């Protein structure tokens, strides 16, 4: 009896979490409006959308399952190279390439998931870092296939659905990336408000207790890890397709470190963290890069240090205050 009552309460609370908050609607309306508002900034907007998708993917494992990763660039690079090679040798259709990039990354995630299931946070950080570095070396040494240090060149993309051609202003590219981001976000939103993700949070908060209540921990973690990998692969594929170029840079350590910073700025564990972080990060980078292009790294480091030392609460407080301004009529029903 109590079991069914509990079940109903869980269902009810999940359903409530699935409802759209007005702030969320405002966020996506603003994203859609960015086409009209910033007609000259499509290139950076496209970068933001891709980075946001990448951050979303890290948030899925870090924010919801508590798996730390210093090598998420492995999946970004995997997606980028497979989408790039796919376009070069199989077909130039973007959607097929996107699907292929996601599939290979998911497969890589599934194959490497046993690596992150063991050991402490520290071992995980090391192993994920190691996997990304290994892939970097592999991509570097397979230069007949990947172009090595010169990068993968000569990628041409066919129009999306056969009609929307990629233009040099990046308008189509941005529309494409934003649509992919939105669709994948909807799926992620559905997933994190599912019983599956409840069990993940249980694992994150207390593995022993989750195991005792019958959660098959390795399977759940492997599933979310592969999903996160697929998302990162999608980001990589978008990157390859919209820039029509892939270089070893996609596997670089700074990709993973930047990503961490993005999620730290935005906050992990509520999906929008990655998106907001990506916007803040790119504008910050853009602003700093205009007056000191060469030493951007110094400032990124300073931000990291200050954030961790105590700035994080300030920013998140500001975001929470902003969200709280919107009326919460729906929550009371």
């Amino acid at each position: 009896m109590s079991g069914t009552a509990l079940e109903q309460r869980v269902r009810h609370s999940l359903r409530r979490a699935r409802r759209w908050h007005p702030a969320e609607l405002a966020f996506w309306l603003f994203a859609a409006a960015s086409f009209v508002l910033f007609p000259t900034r499509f290139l950076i907007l496209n970068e933001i959308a891709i980075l946001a998708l990448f951050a979303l993917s890290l948030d899925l494992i870090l924010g919801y399952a508590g798996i730390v990763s210093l090598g998420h660039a492995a999946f970004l690079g995997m997606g980028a190279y497979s989408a790039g090679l796919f376009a070069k040798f199989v077909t130039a259709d973007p959607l097929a390439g996107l699907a292929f990039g996601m599939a290979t990354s998911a497969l890589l995630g599934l194959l490497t998931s046993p690596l992150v299931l063991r050991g402490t946070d520290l071992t995980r950080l090391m192993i994920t870092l190691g996997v990304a570095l290994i892939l970097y070396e592999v991509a570097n040494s397979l230069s007949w296939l990947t172009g090595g240090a010169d990068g993968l060149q000569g990628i041409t993309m066919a129009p999306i659905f056969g009609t929307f051609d990629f233009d040099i202003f990046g308008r189509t590219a941005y529309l494409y990336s934003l649509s992919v981001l939105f669709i994948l976000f909807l799926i992620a939103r559905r997933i994190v408000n599912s019983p599956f993700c409840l069990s993940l949070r249980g694992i994150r908060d207390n593995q022993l207790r989750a195991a005792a209540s019958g959660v098959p921990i390795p399977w759940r973690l492997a599933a979310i890890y592969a999903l996160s990998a697929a998302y990162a692969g999608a980001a990589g594929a978008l990157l390859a397709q919209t820039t029509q170029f892939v270089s070893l840079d996609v596997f670089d350590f700074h990709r993973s470190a930047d990503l961490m910073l993005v999620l730290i700025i935005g906050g992990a564990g509520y999906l929008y963290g990655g998106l907001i972080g990506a916007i803040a990060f790119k504008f910050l980078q853009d602003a700093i890069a205009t007056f000191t292009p060469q030493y951007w790294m110094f400032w990124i480091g300073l931000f990291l240090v200050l954030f961790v030392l105590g700035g994080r609460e300030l920013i998140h407080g500001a975001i929470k205050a902003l969200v709280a301004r919107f009326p919460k009529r729906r929550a009371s029903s």
Partner: protein
Amino acid sequence: MLTILFDGIAYGMVLFVLACGLSVTMGLMNFVNLAHGAFAMLGGYVTVLLMQRLGLPFLASLPAAFLAAALAGIVLERLVYRPMYAKSHLDQVMFSIGLVFMAVAGTDWLLGSSQQIIQLPPWLQGRFYVFGVGIGYYRLFVIGICGLLAVTLQWGFAKTRFGSRLRAAVDDARVARGLGIPVNRLFALTFALGSGLAGLGGALGIELMGLDPTFPLKFMIYFLIVVTVGGTSTITGPFLAAMLLGVADVMGKYLVPQAGAFIIYTLMVILLLLRPEGLFARART
């Protein structure tokens, strides 16, 4: 073949000196300090600057490298590291990566991005042959110094009052405080010692590893491998791990140059898979 082995051992020895400081901070104090390489770079640059600008001899600049890095260690420990002790590993990782980025870009800005070279004194140049094995004087010198350091450290942690106090403070800081052990000062000293050793290692390693502003990023992974693979409860663990890594890396680069750093990364992943707690570590409770 044996020459490669010898070179690998020398390389491993330098790695050990570079990384053993990290094994102290990371292992004993349980602080993930990815910025360790920045202290090593500091030591390296102090040596380069002293030799190039002031014309100091190589041997005299080595203690200076140690002191400069140790001093930087004390100051930073006081100012920014101490508030980080209680935070999560992830925060510590982000924090120290931030420091690395600042160090890399800052050094680039101050001293340029080019590779630095030093002029070794004549008696450290060249090599001699024993039974067909080529032995470089400098590498022999490095092995001598680092071997001596390893023995001293092992003795210091196992036998001296400082060592036993430190071990007590690490095992249970509260009880150690209750017994009147100045835990904070002990940790600060240990941190300084670790940073100083990194600085010394950086100075010794210029000839073998090169020195440019990306040094902390390039070798971060090596230090981490030494510490995680070697475990952290003893000095012998990191020592053996550094030897293994040094020999494997040098051999890989000589015998299969196209594989690059692939070998050591794979080695690390495999070793960590087999022994997540490190090769020689006791399990953490």
